[in-house]
């Protein structure tokens, strides 16, 4: 096996990098500029920004909540396709999903008993 077949990919990488750099450079040179205070504020979904992340401190608890949300959110991601394909998977799918949910349930009980779901100020 030779590396010849990868030459187009290399070409594409070089070309796309050049294009990205060139277009940023060109637009910064020839684009018109009329800054106003409103235009210079960061975009935060239409809400008036309250200073950047560098000025604020927020509790690490949010991090825990976000982690837990992601872990249990993945469960749903798996449940939907399983529900759609249930007719094909039959008993095998049911057992597999049962094992999956049992493991998640163990994690849930653990988080709950260990106070991971409590919000202590």
């Amino acid at each position, binding site marked *: 096996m*030779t590396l010849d077949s990868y030459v187009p990919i290399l070409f594409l990488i070089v070309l796309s990098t050049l294009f990205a750099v060139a277009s940023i450079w060109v637009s910064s040179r020839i684009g018109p500029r009329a800054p106003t205070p409103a235009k210079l504020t960061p975009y935060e979904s239409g809400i008036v920004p309250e200073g950047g992340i560098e000025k604020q401190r927020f509790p690490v608890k949010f991090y825990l909540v976000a982690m837990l949300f992601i872990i249990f959110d993945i469960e749903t991601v798996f449940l939907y396709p399983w529900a759609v394909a249930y007719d094909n998977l039959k008993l095998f799918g049911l057992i597999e999903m049962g094992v999956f949910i049992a493991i998640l349930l*163990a994690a849930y009980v653990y988080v709950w008993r260990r106070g991971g779901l409590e919000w202590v100020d």
Partner: protein
Amino acid sequence: MEFEAPAVQLGAIGPEIALVTTALLLLIVDAFIPEGEERWYLAVLATIGFGVAIILAANQWGERELQLARMVAVDNFATFVKTSVAVFAVLTVWLSRDYLKRSEDEESEFYALLLFAAAGMMLMASAADLIMVFLALEIFSISLYVLVGFRRRSLASQESAMKYFLLGAFSSAFFLMGIALVYGATGTTNFYPGGGGEGIAGYLVSSAASDVDLLVLGVGLLIVGLGFKIAAVPFHMWTPDAYQGAPSPITGFMAAGTKFAAVATMLRLFVVVLYPLRADWRPILIAVAIATMLLGSVLAVIQEDVKRLLAYSSIAHAGFVLTGLIAANDRGLSGSLFYLATYGLTVLGAFAVVTVLAGRKERNVTLASYRGLFYERPLLAGALTLFMLSLAGVPLTSGFVGKFLVFGAAIQAGYWWLAVIGMLASVIATFFYLRVLVVMYMQEDDRGLQPAITGRLANSVVGLTAAATLVLGIVWGPLIDLAERATVFFA
């Protein structure tokens, strides 16, 4: 579209399932016990889990098949490794019990993570697909990252966990890139031919020698990833820091278990699957082995911390084992297995002595604090003497037999000069093992070093490993016999 349920033989990963189930059970049970109670049942549950795993693994002895969509090989080789890892883990659990007792850290997580780590190491031994190898690697690595940083109030522990984690993630990236290149070259990640694919082994048989450039590049990256786990030079930088900062029982388990699991994968991958490619991987591994043996031995000489000293010693031992792998013959295979099984018991014993003396607060870990240990605690000093002599490879200890086997295999394969370098490194290494003995016997100290842990369980671990080190150094026949029969691979 008609779905055909795959044939799932869960028996193939029975030991791993037993460990994971025990770990989950442990977490749930512990969550319902009020705080402040003594948590003796955690260690009991973990021991039962490992017992079941050992029985299930031993039952697979003699089988020889690929299961679970050709991802998992069930053979004597895997069984040997799995049983050894489980034994290491049980000893670690007993040691940890006395280490953690009555501290706020005696939590179910410690034992659960240990169970998860052991499950990953077991899976590593029977993985017959690069994706499976990676999965197993990550299971035990992630568990160990957390365990290394388990002394939450200790900055050193935090630092070592962070270093281990960052470098470990980096090495995993190398390993993944290696898998990608191997897949690009061969069109498969599976080891063995069959099931509609030819596998990496089949590809090497059917393809011309000129077609393997990309494959060799990929294999090189796999060596980086696996070399990191066994702490081979030049991928060893994390070892002294991680070994020093981790809780002592975990350090012992890392030295014994991680090394065995990663070398097991290397043996299966290089000596069995990539055997036709040996002209390409041998020079790489020879360079790595020489650097590992010499650098590990030389740098250990100047260490003043016992845990760091043992860390450099474990680097050197990775090099010694690699000579058995480089030989790539039957004696090399069985020799490496024997070496790792006995080295694991010895190094666990050495760290058990360190644990007993250092205790929860990890005090008295400098070499100077071992002054006159023999006059205070003759039994502990005697056990440590035995471990040091075994690590140095003195006759009548298991370490000598292991070194004899791997160097003998290298000589048989025509690499006598590699064996000579290995022996040279052993001589250098003997210097710092003897240094420990000199400190214990020949220097007096009036401070009266007392063990921080007096529990019977921890001391019995010291006793058991010392007995194993001595007995296997005198009656080595049965274990060598087992190791030889364990070289039956699925191939």
